[in-house]
């Protein structure tokens, strides 16, 4: 039950954690954007041209991953301008303020909170509203998550977890773990030495020969 493996967690707020695998996956999500200038020879890389010599004309709409957007975004905005994905726009924001608990956040992009925090990095006149919406949604959904994680013992939780995004899922698992540990202690299993989960996993996996 005591774990020895502590992976690097995702970053909080505007900065990502460099070594966190969760952050790397999150920054892979795509953003809509627009090219501000003609971009020579980039067409093949972004999937839009025929040969390697093509350039992207000014104003074309592009879908770029977050890490690329952060790198190419400049305060003088000569290269790329980013737009908000639709889930962070006005329409969805009113949905969230109406009732946040019914939205399926996993379907909308499983990194709603993390991605939203990163979006605040780009200059955008709607930033304070986005920040406010993120916070409010989280507050509204939190009570629900806490209740369900603390009361579902030994049950199939996939129906509950399906609509949560990654941050909420981590919270849910922390709650479940606390609950399990407490039940173990109540049953008197706290002093029982168990085989660690790493060992059990290694036993089950078959090691195959690696080529090359």
């Amino acid at each position, binding site marked *: 039950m005591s774990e020895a493996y*502590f992976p690097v967690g995702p970053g909080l707020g505007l900065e990502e954690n460099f070594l966190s695998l969760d952050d790397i996956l999150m920054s892979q999500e795509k953003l809509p954007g627009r090219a501000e200038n003609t971009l020579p020879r980039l067409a093949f890389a972004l999937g839009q041209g025929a040969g390697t010599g093509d350039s992207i004309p000014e104003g074309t709409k592009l879908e770029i991953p977050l890490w690329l957007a952060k790198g190419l975004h400049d305060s003088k905005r000569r290269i790329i301008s980013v737009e908000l994905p639709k889930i962070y726009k006005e329409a969805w924001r009113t949905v969230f303020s109406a009732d946040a608990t019914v939205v399926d956040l996993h379907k909308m992009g499983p990194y709603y909170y993390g991605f939203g925090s990163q979006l605040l990095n780009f200059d955008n006149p709607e930033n304070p509203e986005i920040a406010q919406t993120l916070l409010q949604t989280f507050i509204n959904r939190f009570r629900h998550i806490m209740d369900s994680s603390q009361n579902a013992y030994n049950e199939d939780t996939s129906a509950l977890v399906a609509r949560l995004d990654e941050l909420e899922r981590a919270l849910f698992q922390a709650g479940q773990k606390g609950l399990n540990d407490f039940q173990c202690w109540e049953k008197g299993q706290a002093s029982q030495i168990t085989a660690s989960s790493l*060992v059990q996993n*290694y036993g089950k996996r078959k090691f195959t020969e690696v080529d090359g």
Partner: protein
Amino acid sequence: RQTLEEMRELYEQNQADVSEAKAGRTDLIFLIRFRHCCLLRNQRCILAYLYDRLLRIRALRWEYGSVLPNTIQFHMSAEEVEWFSRYKKSLATYMRSVGGEEGLDLTQDIKPPKSLYIEVRCLRDYGEFEIDDGTTVLLKKNSQHFLPRWKCEQLIRQGILEHILS
């Protein structure tokens, strides 16, 4: 290794473009910047992967004890094996310096003990096992024994014995 090749290629292409840009064509700056972003991204992914492997190896030391099974060692690179032995050494020096003359084995007693001797059942064939006062115990599948705690703890965590509560 493949990613290193890719990175090298991209870097070389980038170099060619940098020299071109210096020659006066300023509109190529975007391209250079783009490639730089890709390089940074690749570097970040590689570093995170290697760091994660190290964290798992460190966890292995705490779970498995000082000797790793061969199947796992086969999958680690030479540098990782060296890192593991160095980590083992630092951990041993630290344990020796803490708590008294002989030191304190931090890998024992991860859960607070209730008694000195515990009842265990053997899950797999292990062979002979010697206790401090000289008696040997033959560990065959499903045999039950009453053994001192500190000897069994390692074997229980590896899954060979099973702790039974009365």
